């Protein structure tokens, strides 16, 4: 049963990812990424990460993708002539990516993973991955990281306003 769910999620996530890379219209690419993220959240559920799966759907597939949709609509659907300017990258890109895939697989699978037992820990503590457990970890063990994250979000919000905000005079003149 788990296998069926995994392969269903894997095919969906991979299909969404490939669609993001290959679709020409950026608007459709954004929608393909939403599909990818929803399937990936399903895979997170299989790994007992309920809270992360919910956060992924709400924050990523919801909020972040809305920004993408707005920007894609704002700049217009530019149908890019796909691999025009750099034909050498059309060949080398996938080759490099395949090499990277093999390399990561060797690095991850060839590590001492087998010694740990590949099924993972038999019994996780009850409540593993629930909002309660994650929140407790976050506010007790990782409090400084949590505060730093809030500061980072504030800085990013200010940066976005500075970058994309409309200047009154100089913009019109320049």
């Amino acid at each position, binding site marked *: 049963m788990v296998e069926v769910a995994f392969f269903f999620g894997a095919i969906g996530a991979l299909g969404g990812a490939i669609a993001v890379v290959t679709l020409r219209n950026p608007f459709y690419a954004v929608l393909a990424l939403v599909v990818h993220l929803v399937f990936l959240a399903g895979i997170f559920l299989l790994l007992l990460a309920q809270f992360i799966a919910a956060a992924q759907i709400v924050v990523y597939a919801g909020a972040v993708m809305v920004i993408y949709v707005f*920007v894609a609509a704002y700049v217009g659907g530019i149908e890019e002539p796909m691999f025009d300017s750099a034909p050498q990258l059309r060949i080398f890109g996938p080759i490099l990516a395949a090499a990277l895939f093999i390399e990561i697989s060797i690095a991850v*699978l060839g590590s001492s993973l087998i010694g740990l037992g590949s*099924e*993972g820990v038999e019994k996780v503590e009850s409540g593993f991955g629930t909002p309660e457990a994650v929140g407790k970890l976050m506010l007790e*063990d990782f409090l400084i990281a949590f505060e730093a*994250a809030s500061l980072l979000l504030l800085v990013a919000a200010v940066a976005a306003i500075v970058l*994309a905000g409309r200047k009154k005079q100089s913009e019109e003149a320049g």
Partner: protein
Amino acid sequence: MAIEWYLVLSALLFSVGFTGVLIRRNPVVVLLCLELMLSAGALALISFSRLHGDGDGQVFVLMVLVVAACEVVVGLGLVVAMFRRRIALDVDEMKELRG
């Protein structure tokens, strides 16, 4: 279900995102492919978290979500600024760090 399957899937998704960053030219799509790479990294973190039965990896994934949100906001702000200044939305054209 062995954890290796999840790790291989994560590597595969990362490579697909990497291909997109290399071959696409629209900055919005390049940012989307960066998101693919980040979510592949998140999948690997959650797999290891499950492997060890330890919640630290999940907290780290939340941090990745925060960083991804910041990256999106700044990146899309740059795209909007480029569009306003009528700079071509093509990463190959962006060779100089001049306004």
